[in-house]
C-alpha cells in the first residue's frame, strides 16, 4: 500500500523530468501523452491505495533529509484518511483536468512546458498533503506556489500576464514568510517539526489560550490566508485567471487554494489551543465570503466571476474551521473541488468554442449551440448555489451552516446565509450572461463546440456526475481524525437549519430571476449612472483592495526608496568626491610639460615667498 502511494507521487515527477529534459524536441502528441498518462497512472495507483486501505494511519519514511543534532526532518509520508482523500482529489480531479487540457491546449505553442509545470504541480501538491513533517510540507507548499507562478505566466508574451504571475507569487510569499516563522517558533518551543509529535506535545507545553500558542497559530494562519486567497491576502487570485483555464481549474479552484484549509485542518490540535485565533479564522472566512460574493456580482469576465466565487467558497471552509467543524470544511473542500473544476472546465469549453472570448457582454445565446458546456454550467451552478437535495454543494454547505448554528456563532451563520443568497444571484447572472439573451459578438454567433468524446465530453460528464448528490455520497467522513465537531452531540434542530438554508437559496434564485429577467432594463439604468454606477465600480474593483495596497504599501515604499536614493548623507559623501575630482582636474592642467609655464610658475612662487618674507620681517634690516 505504501509502495503505491510513493508511486503516485513519483510518476508525475518522472514525467516532469522527462518533459523538462526533452524540451520542445518532443512533439505535442508525445508531450500530451506523457503529461496526461502519468497523472492517469498516478490516479490508478491512488485508487489501488484507497481500495487496499485498512483505515489505520500509516507512515513511511523514505530517508532522513537533514541530520543535525536534534534537527532530523525526514522525507516521510503519512497515509491517513485525510491525506488519502486529498490524494484522491488531486490525482482524480487532476487527471480529468489534464485530460480536458489535451483538448483545450491543442495547437498552443509550448505544450511540453505546460505539462512539465502541471505534472510538477501535481507532485508538489501530493508532497504537501502527504508530508509527515512541516519542513517537507513547506517544500510542497513552495513547490505549488512556484508552479502556480509558472502557469499563470504561461502566455508570457503578454506583459500583463507576467505581472499577474509576479503578483500571485509575491502576495502568497508574504503568507509563506508567516508560515516559515510559525515553523521556526514551533521548532524552538517544541523541538520537533514532525506533525504527529507537534500535535502530541503542543497541549503539554502550551496551556490553552497561552500567548505563544496564539502567536504560533496566528503565524500559520497567515500562511493559510496567502495560499487560500482570503482577506487581506486575496488580491492575487482574480489576476491569476490570466493562466490557461485548466490551470485555473486545477490550481486556482480545486487544489492549491484549498491548501490553507488543509493546513489548518491538519494542525487542528494547535488551533484548538488558541480558541481566539480559531474564531478569527471563522471571522476572516465570513468577511472573505461576503466581500468576494459581492465582488462576483459586478464582474464581466466569466473567469473572474468564478475566481471570486472560489474565494467565497473557501470563505465557507474557513467558517467551518473557525467553529471547529474540521470535517465539514474538508467535506466542502471535496465537493467544491468537483463542482468548481466542472465550472472552470465548462467555462474553458465556452472560451475555446468562442475563440478565446471570455467577456460576458460579448457572449450570450449559446445554450442551444454548446449543450455540453451548458449542462456543465447548470449542474456546477446548482452545486455552487447548493440547490437542495440534488446537488453536492447542498450537503456540504448545509453541514457548515449547521455546525456554525450548533456552535452558537449566529454572526457566522447569518454571513453564510447572506452569502448563499448572493451566490444564487451571481451564479444566475453568470449563466444568463453566457448562455441566454442575444449573442454579443460574431464569435458567439458562430461557436465551434468541442466534439472530442474522450478529451472534451468525458471530463465534463464525470465531474458533472460528481457534482450531484453522488459526489456527496462518496464522502464518507474522516472519522476519528478530528476532534468532535460542535454539532455532534448538539440538540439544535438540523431540520430548522435546512429549511433556513433552502429558504436562502430559493430567495437568491428568485431575486436573481426577478432582477435579471423581469427587471433587466431597470437594472441597466440603475447601474449605468449616479450612485449605482459608483457602486458598480466599487464592486467591480472588489472593494478597491488593489488601490488600497497600491497607495498604502507599494507607493510609500517607492517614495521611501526614492528618498533613500537621494539622501543627504550620500550627498555629503558625494561632495567629497566632487572636491577631489575638481582638484584633480585643476592640478592636471599644471602638468602640461611646457618649460616656460614651469619657469613662470617658479618665478611667481619665488616672488610670493620674497614678498611675504619682506612683509613679515617688516623691512627690519
Amino acid at each position, binding site marked *: 500500500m505504501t509502495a503505491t502511494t510513493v508511486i503516485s507521487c513519483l510518476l508525475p515527477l518522472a514525467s516532469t523530468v522527462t518533459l523538462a529534459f526533452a524540451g520542445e524536441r518532443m512533439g505535442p502528441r508525445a508531450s500530451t501523452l506523457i503529461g496526461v498518462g502519468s497523472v492517469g497512472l498516478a490516479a490508478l495507483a491512488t485508487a489501488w491505495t484507497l481500495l487496499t486501505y485498512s483505515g489505520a494511519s500509516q507512515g513511511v519514511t523514505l530517508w532522513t533529509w537533514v541530520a543535525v543534532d536534534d534537527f532530523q526532518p525526514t522525507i516521510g509520508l503519512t497515509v491517513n484518511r485525510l491525506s488519502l482523500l486529498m490524494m484522491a482529489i488531486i490525482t482524480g480531479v487532476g487527471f480529468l483536468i489534464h485530460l480536458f487540457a489535451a483538448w483545450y491546449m491543442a495547437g498552443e505553442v509550448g505544450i511540453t512546458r505546460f505539462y512539465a509545470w502541471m505534472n510538477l504541480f501535481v507532485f508538489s501538491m501530493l508532497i504537501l498533503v502527504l508530508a509527515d513533517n512541516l519542513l517537507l510540507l513547506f517544500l510542497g507548499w513552495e513547490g505549488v506556489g512556484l508552479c502556480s507562478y509558472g502557469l499563470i505566466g504561461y502566455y508570457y508574451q503578454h506583459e500583463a500576464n507576467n505581472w499577474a504571475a509576479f503578483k500571485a507569487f509575491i502576495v502568497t510569499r508574504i503568507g509563506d514568510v508567516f508560515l516559515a516563522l510559525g515553523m521556526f517558533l514551533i521548532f524552538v518551543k517544541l523541538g520537533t517539526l514532525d506533525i504527529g509529535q507537534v500535535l502530541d506535545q503542543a497541549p503539554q507545553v502550551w496551556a490553552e489560550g497561552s500567548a505563544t500558542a496564539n502567536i504560533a497559530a496566528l503565524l500559520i494562519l497567515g500562511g493559510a490566508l496567502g495560499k487560500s486567497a482570503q482577506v487581506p491576502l486575496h488580491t492575487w487570485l482574480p489576476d491569476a485567471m490570466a493562466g490557461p483555464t485548466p490551470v485555473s481549474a486545477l490550481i486556482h479552484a480545486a487544489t492549491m487554494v484549498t491548501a490553507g484549509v488543509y493546513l489548518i485542518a491538519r494542525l487542528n490540535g494547535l488551533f484548538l489551543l488558541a480558541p481566539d485565533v480559531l474564531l478569527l479564522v471563522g471571522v476572516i472566512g465570513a468577511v472573505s465570503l461576503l466581500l468576494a460574493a459581492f465582488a462576483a456580482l459586478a464582474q464581466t469576465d466569466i473567469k473572474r466571476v468564478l475566481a471570486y466565487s472560489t474565494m467565497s467558497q473557501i470563505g465557507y471552509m474557513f467558517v467551518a474551521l473557525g467553529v471547529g467543524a474540521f470535517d465539514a470544511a474538508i467535506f466542502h473542500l471535496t465537493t467544491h473541488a468537483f463542482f468548481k473544476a466542472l465550472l472552470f472546465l465548462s467555462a474553458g469549453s465556452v472560451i475555446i468554442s468562442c475563440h478565446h472570448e471570455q467577456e460576458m457582454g460579448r457572449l450570450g445565446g449559446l445554450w442551444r449551440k454548446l449543450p455540453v458546456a451548458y449542462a456543465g454550467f447548470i449542474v456546477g451552478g446548482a452545486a455552487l448555489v447548493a440547490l437542495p437535495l440534488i446537488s453536492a454543494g447542498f450537503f456540504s454547505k448545509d453541514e457548515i451552516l449547521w455546525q456554525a448554528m450548533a456552535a452558537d456563532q449566529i454572526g457566522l451563520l447569518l454571513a453564510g446565509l447572506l452569502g448563499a443568497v448572493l451566490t444564487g444571484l451571481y451564479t444566475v447572472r453568470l449563466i444568463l450572461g453566457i448562455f441566454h439573451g442575444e449573442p454579443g459578438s460574431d464569435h458567439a454567433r458562430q461557436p465551434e463546440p468541442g466534439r472530442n468524446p474522450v478529451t472534451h465530453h468525458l471530463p465534463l460528464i464525470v465531474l458533472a456526475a460528481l457534482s450531484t448528490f453522488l459526489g456527496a455520497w462518496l464522502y464518507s467522513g474522516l472519522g476519528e481524525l478530528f476532534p468532535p465537531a460542535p454539532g455532534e452531540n448538539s440538540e439544535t434542530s438540523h431540520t430548522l437549519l435546512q429549511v433556513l438554508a433552502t429558504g436562502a437559496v430559493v430567495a437568491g434564485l428568485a431575486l436573481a430571476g426577478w432582477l435579471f429577467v423581469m427587471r433587466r432594463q431597470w437594472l441597466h439604468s440603475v447601474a449605468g449612472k449616479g450612485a449605482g454606477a459608483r457602486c458598480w465600480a466599487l464592486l467591480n474593483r472588489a472593494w478597491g483592495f488593489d488601490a488600497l495596497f497600491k497607495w498604502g504599501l507599494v507607493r510609500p515604499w517607492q517614495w521611501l526608496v526614492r528618498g533613500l536614493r537621494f539622501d543627504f548623507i550620500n550627498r555629503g559623501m558625494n561632495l567629497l568626491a566632487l572636491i577631489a575630482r575638481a582638484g584633480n582636474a585643476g592640478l592636471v592642467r599644471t*602638468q602640461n610639460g611646457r618649460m*616656460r609655464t614651469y619657469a613662470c610658475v617658479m618665478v611667481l612662487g619665488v616672488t610670493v615667498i620674497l614678498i611675504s618674507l619682506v612683509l613679515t620681517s617688516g623691512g627690519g634690516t
Partner: protein
Amino acid sequence: MNGIPMEHGLMLAAILFTLGLAGLMLRRSMLFVLMSLEIMLNATGLAFIVGSTAWNQPDGQAMFLLVITLAAAEASVGLALMIQLYQRFHSLKLDNVSRMRG
C-alpha cells in the same frame, strides 16, 4: 673703480638678471633660453664682484670663480641636451616638445 657707486653696479646686475629672467619666461627657442640663463648667472656674478669691491672682501671674488665654473658646466649640459633635442624633434622650439596631454 671706486668712482662708481655700489648702487649703480647692483642696479646693473638687477637689470641684467631681470632681462635674463624675462628671456627665460618669454623665449620659445631653447638656444635663447640657455643664453638667458647665462645672462642671469653672469648678473649674479656681477653682483658678487660689486659687493666684494665695495666692502673690500675677497670672498665675493672667490664666489665669482665658482659661478663661472657652474656656468661652464651648465652650458655644456644644456648644449648637449639641445643637440639631443634637435636630433629627436628637428626643432628647438620648447613648446613643441611637450608630449603630455594635461
